[in-house]
Every structure is written in C-alpha cells, then in structure tokens.
C-alpha cells in the first residue's frame, strides 16, 4: 500500500519562516518538492533612482552574514563601469576581508548549523557516534559548538582593522579602498590569522594544512583517517566517520551541474597562485567535465515566481523585479526567481568551486558517488584550508608594500553598466548595475540561495535543492532529519528577513509540508 505523507514540519534552516519546503512522501521516500521563499524583499526596486555609489552603503545591510560579500560585489560592479583596476594593495585588502567572512561562515555553518543535527537524539540515538556527537554539537553546550564561536569571533578584529570600523564598513570604493592600515595593525592581523589557522589545523583538521592538501582521493581520505587518532577525532575526521555511517554520501544528488564565478582577483605582483587572474577558478561543470564560464548565459526565469508574468527569461542587466502575487493559483509559489545558466539548473557553493578548480579529492568523490550531502558539506568544511595560507601571504605582502597605492582616483561614475561577480560563502553572487546620469537605473542581485533554492522554471525543471530532495528517504515524518541534511548541505540563507524577538514563537521553525 502506498502511503503519502503531506504537511510535515521540521526546523529546516532556522531562517525564521522565510523559507518553506513542501514535499510529498510516498512509502517513506520524497517524490516531489517545492521550495518557496515566502518574503518579498525588493531591494532592487529600492536601489533605482539612488546615487551611483549607494549600492556600497545599502547592499551590505541586506545581510548580516554576507555584508562584506555584498560590498565586494557592489564595488566590483562599479569598478567595471568606471573602467578602473584597483591597485594591488586594494586587491589584497578586499580579498582578505572577503576571506575572513568566508572562513568564519564555513566553520560556523559546519558545526552550528549542519553537525548540530548529529546531536539530534531522536534521529541518531542509536548511531554508534551519537553520544559523542551530542557532547560535541549540542546547542549552547557542545564542546565544538562553543569553541567555534569563540575562535571565529576573534577573526572579526581583522575586519575591524581592515575596514576601519565594525559593523557596517564601506571601505571598498570604486578604484580601491579607503583605509590604509598601519604596519602594527597589519602585523596584529597576521597574528590573529595565524592563531586561527593554528586552531583550525588542531581542532578542525587534526593535522597541518600541508598534510590535508596531500589527501587527493577517496583512498587517501581513508588512509588519512586511520593514520592518526588526531585525524579520526578532529571535527573533519568525526564528520567523515559519522556521515559514512549515516549514509550521507547517498543523499542529495542534485542537478549534477555546477557553477563558480571564480573569486579573489589576483594582484599583478603576488606569490599567490591562481587561474586566469583569479585565485579561485571560474567555470561551469557537468559532472566532473569543466567548461569556461560565460556570464552572458545567465538568465532569470519568473514563470513560477510571484512576479509580473509574460516575459521570456532575461539576462539580469535587463531584468525587472515587478511583484505580482495574484492569479496563477498553484503555479506561482515563491518570491525567489529561478536563475538558470544556458537554460540549465545548476548548483553553486564550495563543492562547485572544488569541482571547477579540479580538486582531485572532490573529483574522485563525485565520480564514485555523484554529488551528495557528505561531499557538499565536506567541501565547505575544508575550504578554509585553501584560504588561510593566501591570507597570511597577502598580509605579508601588505606589510612589505605598504608604501604602494591603495586607490586609483575615480572622480565620477560614467554612464554604463557593469557586473560584480564573486563567490560568496554560499556560492555565486552577482550584482548587475546600470548607471545613467550618476543615478542607478537598474540593479539586479542574484544570490547563491536564489541559484540553489530556486523554484521551477518555464520547462518545469526543479531548482537545485528541490531536485536534490527527490529520492530522499524519510524514516520519521515527525523528525525528517534526512531532508534537513539535504537542504542544509546547500547552506540556505534568506537571512535578509525578519529576525525580531517574537513572544512564544519557536525561532526558525520552517514548514515542510504540502499545500504550496
């Protein structure tokens, strides 16, 4: 007999009600999924008619987690319009700030938002590592939970120094940066980064970054695990052991297409290596086959979103954001648009970065099991290993070259259009900006969560995590932790929403149910 369950509720991303996932479950397997952003934000509309530079002040306030990230994208879009290349020192400072935000987000998401579910006693009370997981990750008390907050908090001092203030710095401007830290402050930043790296190696990896970088295949990973108790007991070691035993490598395949805009433009004179002028490569991948990234292939589809209907999918330079929430009952179900690349659904985020960059461990993981929850989450957890060494290198170069320029003069922003395409912690982030008479005439933002959490498009193709949910087994519809793992492995973030203290309400209880 086929059993269909609808209307189950789980605390999905704890994003306080602005994301709703509806699923159909037949015989304990998810057979359909709809992802709905339930809050209209309309930042793009607020930007129109404002001064050309206002994106630098407004967009960082869109999100408390990604404020530096939005600032970077906004500044790069204006650089493009002004036709200016920031000097090397500005590149170094901008990259450093973005790296701090990314590293902080990666370790917090892993421990506090993903692995906290390993401490879910109803789901994992019988798991051989369940008791250990509880001691590590239980909210407000787990050893690792407290440690990651303490250590990631200290990194903020680097942002305060680089940005000249915290929170809400706007130190990036077209042409460069406005702050020139003193040598003593740069040295202080270096000490903070080195301290963080030392903790990351000791607690998260259980080995040096150099040793971790030698893990280049699934068999290397197995050998690394058994090589030392420090590896097994590290957070990454524990994650791999727990995930394998919980079958997380079998969940959450997704669209099997990946996109990275590339990240961290390289200074002209630097010891840090990269590809095509960026430290992190840009590209589009189908499985493990990587193709060049072509920005013109990006479009936004609104066929299932609560926006004015009738237009064909458009490139964000010409895209409009006109809310229209009535009619089309049942067809339209999200305030999130559906970005597509060459008409295809893609996944973005750390796993996409690893695949596009040709990281051998992740290519091997994908070739053996396909994209999955474990690989996606592991990519996020170990990404800081690739960032911390360049951070230290750029701080050293800043100390050595502090007398060089930090800013190329930009007197005004000319008429024109430009895009700031970067990798946020959660994946590809783009700001597309059009300026006329020193005013913003169009501003379109596509966030990583729009890519990963999009609704269906005009061809009926599901968004990335809608697709990843299909086939997910749910043992207990009252505690559907498996579905939570799948969506959380994408690190959904619709934080630019409401967060106020609400009497008697459970924060972040996100509905999973029918009735879209």
């Amino acid at each position, binding site marked *: 007999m086929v059993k269909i369950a609808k209307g189950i509720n789980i*605390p999905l*991303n*704890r*994003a*306080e009600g602005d994301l709703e996932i509806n699923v159909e479950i037949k015989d304990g397997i998810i057979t359909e999924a709809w992802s709905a952003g339930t*809050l209209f*934000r309309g*930042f793009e509309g*607020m930007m129109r008619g404002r001064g050309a530079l206002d994106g630098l002040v407004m967009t960082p*306030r*869109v*999100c*408390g*987690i990604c*404020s530096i990230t939005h600032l970077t994208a906004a500044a790069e879009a204006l650089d493009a319009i002004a036709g200016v290349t920031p000097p090397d020192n500005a590149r170094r400072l901008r990259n450093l700030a973005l790296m701090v935000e990314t590293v902080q987000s990666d370790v*917090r998401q892993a421990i*506090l*938002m993903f692995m*906290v579910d390993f401490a879910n006693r109803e789901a994992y009370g019988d798991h051989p590592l369940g008791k250990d997981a509880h001691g590590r990750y239980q*909210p*407000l*008390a787990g050893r690792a*939970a*407290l440690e990651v*907050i*303490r250590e*990631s*908090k*200290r990194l*903020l*001092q680097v942002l305060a120094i680089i940005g000249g203030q*915290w*929170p*809400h710095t706007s130190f990036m401007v077209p042409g460069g940066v406005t702050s020139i830290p003193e040598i003593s402050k740069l040295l202080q930043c270096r000490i903070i980064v080195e301290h963080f790296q030392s903790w990351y190696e000791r607690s998260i990896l259980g080995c040096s970054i150099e040793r971790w970088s030698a893990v280049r295949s699934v068999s290397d990973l197995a050998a690394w695990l058994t090589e030392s108790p420090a590896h097994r007991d590290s957070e990454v070691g524990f994650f791999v052991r727990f995930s394998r035993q919980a079958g997380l490598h079998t969940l959450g395949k997704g669209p099997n297409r990946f996109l990275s805009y590339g990240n961290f433009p390289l200074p002209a004179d630097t010891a840090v290596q990269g590809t095509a002028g960026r430290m992190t490569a840009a590209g589009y991948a189908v499985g493990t086959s990587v193709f060049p990234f072509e920005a013109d292939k990006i479009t936004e589809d609104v066929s299932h979103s609560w926006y004015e209907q009738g237009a064909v999918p458009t490139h964000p330079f010409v895209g409009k954001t006109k809310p229209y929430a009535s009619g089309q009952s049942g067809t339209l179900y999200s305030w999130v648009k559906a970005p597509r690349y060459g008409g295809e659904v893609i996944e973005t985020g750390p796993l996409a970065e690893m695949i596009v960059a040709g990281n051998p461990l992740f290519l091997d993981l994908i070739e053996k099991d396909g994209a999955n929850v474990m690989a996606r989450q592991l990519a996020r957890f170990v990404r800081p290993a690739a960032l911390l060494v360049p951070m230290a290198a750029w701080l050293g170069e800043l100390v050595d070259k502090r007398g060089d320029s930090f800013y190329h003069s930009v007197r005004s922003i000319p008429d024109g259009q430009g895009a700031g395409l970067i990798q946020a912690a959660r994946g590809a982030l783009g700001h597309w900006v059009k300026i006329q008479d020193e005013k913003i005439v169009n501003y379109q933002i596509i966030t990583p969560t729009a890519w990963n959490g999009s609704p269906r498009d005009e061809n009926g193709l599901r968004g990335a995590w809608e697709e990843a949910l299909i086939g997910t087994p749910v043992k207990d519809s009252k505690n559907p932790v498996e579905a939570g793992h799948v969506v959380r492995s994408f690190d959904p*973030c619709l*934080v*630019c*929403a*409401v*967060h*106020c*203290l*609400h*009497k*008697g*309400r*459970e*924060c*972040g*209880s996100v509905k999973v149910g029918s009735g879209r």
Partner: protein
Amino acid sequence: MKGTIICIGNRFVEEDCAGLQVFDCLQAMHPLPTGIELVEGGLAGLNLLPLLEQGGRVVFVDAVKGFTQSGEIVVLTHREILQSPGQFRFGHEAGLPYVLAILPKVCDGELPEDIVLLGLEGRCVEKTLEKAAKMSVAMAMHGLRDLG
C-alpha cells in the same frame, strides 16, 4: 559607567526596522552624553559578541512581537529575553536570545553589568521613536532607575 546602545534589525523590512529607525533618531541627537556609544548592530547576530565583552551597561533597541500593543514600547530585562522559548539554536539570523545565552560561555573580556532590551511593537509613529531614543539614552546612563 560606560553605556552602549545597540540598535538591531533589518532596515529594509518594515516589521523589523524599528531599531534602526531609533538609531537614526539617536544619530540626529548627536552628540550623545559622554560615555555613551551608539552602534548600528543591524543583522550582525553572533558578530555582536565582541560588543558585549567590554563591561558597562548595554541597551538593545529592536522590534518585538507579541509583548504589548502595536505602537507601544516595552522594556525587557536580560532574564526576560533569555526566557523567550525555543530561540536557542543557531541560524544565519542568530537572534538576541541565542547571542545572550552563549555570551557567558565564550566571553573573552568583561561581561556587561546590565543588559536590557527596549522593544518597539508593530508600526511606531515618529513620536514613539523619539521617545524610545530618549529612553535608550537614559537606560544606558542610569539603567532601569528613574524610568517611571
């Protein structure tokens, strides 16, 4: 005693912007009394922690729901904030109860001597925002004493 006023919320969401509206009122009142620091906390969540490691008195200003009538102001003590049920799991939004609950366990500096929340319920008129701004300064200077 040092006093810090931290205005939090989302400037772009109507039902969550009251704290930032009070921030704008306070900025217009500059200079604030000596020893009072004003911070636009926005959506910083856990990244507010370093601001809570400097001792003194801390006044949060934020929108609230379900505590009083729309358009009114409510003052919640540290204990009352922590009693908000079910808000102790971390999310990208990491609300105030989570931040305050974790604070004593991760603090590297000096804990605040007093923490209060000045909450604004629903849509507030300009007069209410100005009243909240003045109250936040008074609370940052003197605590809950003399509030009446």
